[in-house]
């Protein structure tokens, strides 16, 4: 283990590795400040450039870019109340009030320090868990891999889609797209309509660029341009005592247990596929408010309200990395795109990666640790520039992203037909997002199609129904079934409660996932109100 750890550090320590780590962090910092251009868009745009690159420097570029977006996303969240990345949304709650109170530098100091320390704690936990995970994966049989892949698709579908059926359809569509092309079992060409260019299926880059980058550009172009934000002269360097960046850093150290707790929570949530992402930061904020001695102050611009979500933002990515590399099941959207990067580099995420390429896994852990510090330093140094970038009209950015997408997809596939596919997937991705389907579930379905197909084939031929007698398989199958039907059961239970005599208490009508949809004493009356 020590040998592979040192090997990982050495592989990253080359000039190319360090340079690409810096470039990735810089790109992430710049792009993170632009609302609408999230990490997934940046990662998909970088995918074509990693072809023919050595593995570690290529992954350093991708992972550093992914890590870099978090702090700069928080810069706009704190200064403008506009999160650059969705993950920074929870930071607005106390970050912006602190800016309004004349302490923007202190808020940025808290964010930078908490993000960095959170990233380090996440990486430390990741390093501790990798050897354990290495042991755990030896217990996995095809039925467990199959169940885990389906679980990831279902969980991400249910977390990000607007209804149960939409979540299921999103994942199924992704899987169905992945079956296009050469069938590894029979050698038959499937769903290609005789097109030679589709014999190898759709290119990962085309699908990722289309579903994320192009779809997001279509949405961004149509979004009403935000008003130009002016926040006056930012006096970061010469701020008054009590409002300086270093005061923010001191706040984090003063709340060290909150920082540690939030980082651990972020890492743990990141490990569960589908649960990380935006939710982790809100959960972290929520737990900080719950256990605080003065919860009523949350939302008024207190340090704890910034520390909690920021400490979990990068630590969650460290957690996300674990199921991605150990089991081949991406923990979130960014990791799904990163998994495309693994495929491009000829690596197969899963138990074999932990055994054969453990040095690469360690390198990735180091990249997160270094990039979390670098991104904070770069972000603080570039605050005035980031403010200007955040004000660039989206309609100027859109053509550049489209151009890079069209250039990138050809660079990756050498097939002009894939440029047509990228546009088609862009329209599909836009429609999915617009009508409440889960784009990440479709992408993860596409990526895991081969895992599902291979393992389902093995389960059928080797294990059969006996696979359900295996505890791990049975457990995961139960979670899949529960995550699909629990919302319905919850709704039925609430309806039954409402019908009980004397239970006329005001209640919010439960949605498919138990969500509330406004105050409605009688959900059925609310249903009747829904008119066609």
């Amino acid at each position, binding site marked *: 283990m020590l040998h592979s750890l040192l090997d990982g550090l050495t592989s990253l320590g080359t000039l190319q590795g360090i340079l690409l780590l810096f470039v990735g962090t810089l790109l992430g910092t710049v792009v993170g400040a632009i609302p609408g*251009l999230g990490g997934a868009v940046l990662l998909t745009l970088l995918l074509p450039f990693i072809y023919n690159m050595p593995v570690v420097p290529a992954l350093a570029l991708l992972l550093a870019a992914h890590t870099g977006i978090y702090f700069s996303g928080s810069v706009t969240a704190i200064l403008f109340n506009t*999160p650059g990345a969705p993950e920074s949304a929870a930071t607005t709650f106390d970050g912006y009030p602190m800016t309004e109170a004349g302490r923007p530098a202190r808020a940025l100091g808290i964010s930078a320090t908490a993000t960095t320390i959170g990233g380090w704690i996440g990486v430390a936990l990741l390093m501790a868990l990798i050897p354990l995970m290495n042991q755990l994966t030896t217990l996995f049989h095809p039925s467990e891999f199959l169940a885990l892949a389906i679980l990831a698709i279902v969980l991400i579908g249910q977390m990000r889609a607007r209804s149960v059926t939409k979540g299921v359809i999103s994942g*199924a569509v992704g899987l169905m797209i992945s079956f296009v092309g050469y069938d590894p079992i029979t050698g*038959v060409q499937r769903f290609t309509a005789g097109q030679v260019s589709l014999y190898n299926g759709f290119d990962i880059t085309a699908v990722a660029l289309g579903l994320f980058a192009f779809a997001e550009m279509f949405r961004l172009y149509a*979004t009403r341009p935000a008003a130009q934000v002016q926040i006056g002269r930012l006096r970061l360097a010469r701020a008054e005592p009590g409002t300086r960046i270093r005061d923010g850093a001191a706040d984090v150290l003063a709340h060290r247990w909150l920082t540690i707790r939030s980082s651990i929570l972020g890492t743990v949530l990141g490990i569960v596929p589908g649960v990380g992402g935006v939710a982790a930061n809100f959960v972290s904020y929520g737990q900080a408010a719950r256990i605080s001695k003065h919860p009523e102050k949350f939302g008024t611009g207190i340090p704890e309200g910034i520390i909690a979500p920021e400490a979990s933002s990068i630590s969650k990515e460290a957690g996300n990395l674990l199921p991605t590399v150990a089991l081949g099941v991406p923990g979130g959207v960014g990791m799904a795109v990163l998994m495309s990067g693994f495929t491009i580099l000829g690596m197969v995420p899963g138990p074999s990666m932990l055994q054969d390429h453990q040095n690469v896994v360690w390198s990735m852990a180091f990249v997160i640790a270094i990039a979390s510090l670098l991104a904070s330093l770069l972000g603080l140094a570039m605050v005035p520039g980031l403010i200007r970038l955040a004000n660039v009209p989206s309609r100027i950015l859109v*053509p550049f992203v489209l151009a890079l997408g069209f250039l990138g997809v050809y660079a990756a596939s050498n097939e002009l037909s894939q440029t047509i596919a990228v546009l088609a997937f862009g329209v599909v991705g836009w429609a999915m997002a617009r009508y409440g389907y889960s784009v990440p579930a479709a992408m993860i379905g596409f990526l895991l199609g081969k895992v599902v197909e291979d393992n389902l084939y093995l389960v059928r031929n080797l294990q059969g129904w006996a696979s359900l007698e295996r505890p791990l398989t049975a457990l995961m199958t139960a979670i899949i079934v529960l995550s699909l039907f629990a919302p319905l059961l919850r709704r039925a239970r609430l309806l039954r409660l409402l019908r009980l005599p004397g239970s006329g208490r005001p209640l919010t009508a439960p949605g498919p996932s138990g969500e509330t949809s406004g105050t409605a004493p009688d959900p059925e009356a609310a249903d009747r109100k829904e008119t066609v």
Partner: protein
Amino acid sequence: MTEADGTAGPGTEEPLASPSARVRSRGELVVDILLVLGIAWYLYVAQGYPPDGRQIPTVVGTVGLVAAVIQLVGWFIPRLWSFTHGNRPASRAAPGARPDTASAGGHAPAAPDRDAGATSRESRDTVVIMAWAAFFLVAILVLGYVYGVPLFFLAYFGARRSWKLAIGSAVVMWALTQFVFIDLLAIPLPGGAWL
């Protein structure tokens, strides 16, 4: 009808209920029908492959078809709406989120109270940018990357009367195409059907 976020496809926004009522869109119905037809076609095609080759697409396609049919049926049955077309408020998608911030920059549902004029304008703008993207693709297919890319930037920013930006961006993108992609990355970008 549109859902709470008032979303619908281009040209299909016809809010048929008061803004406070949860409503759906005809665009959504079109998507539901297309899904059923598309997945049914997929299953039909799959039946032409050898048993081992069609088995897994058939399993996945059947699951998708069942979900799509339930979804389509749900469009007509209000009691099923929350299961099939339910709106997930931002506060649920991200616990504790404020609706205006949780959706920012991501795929979370948009704010529920946008007026019909705004959604209509958004639909029109979406069609416009998709048309621009299609024009860009045709330019690449016909003229190749080296000429198609700068031409697109000239046309896109020229149409917005930003000629300085049009010429500047065209030159920058031509240089990027030629020097980075062709020379540095050694990618033989195709010349186009007319060249």
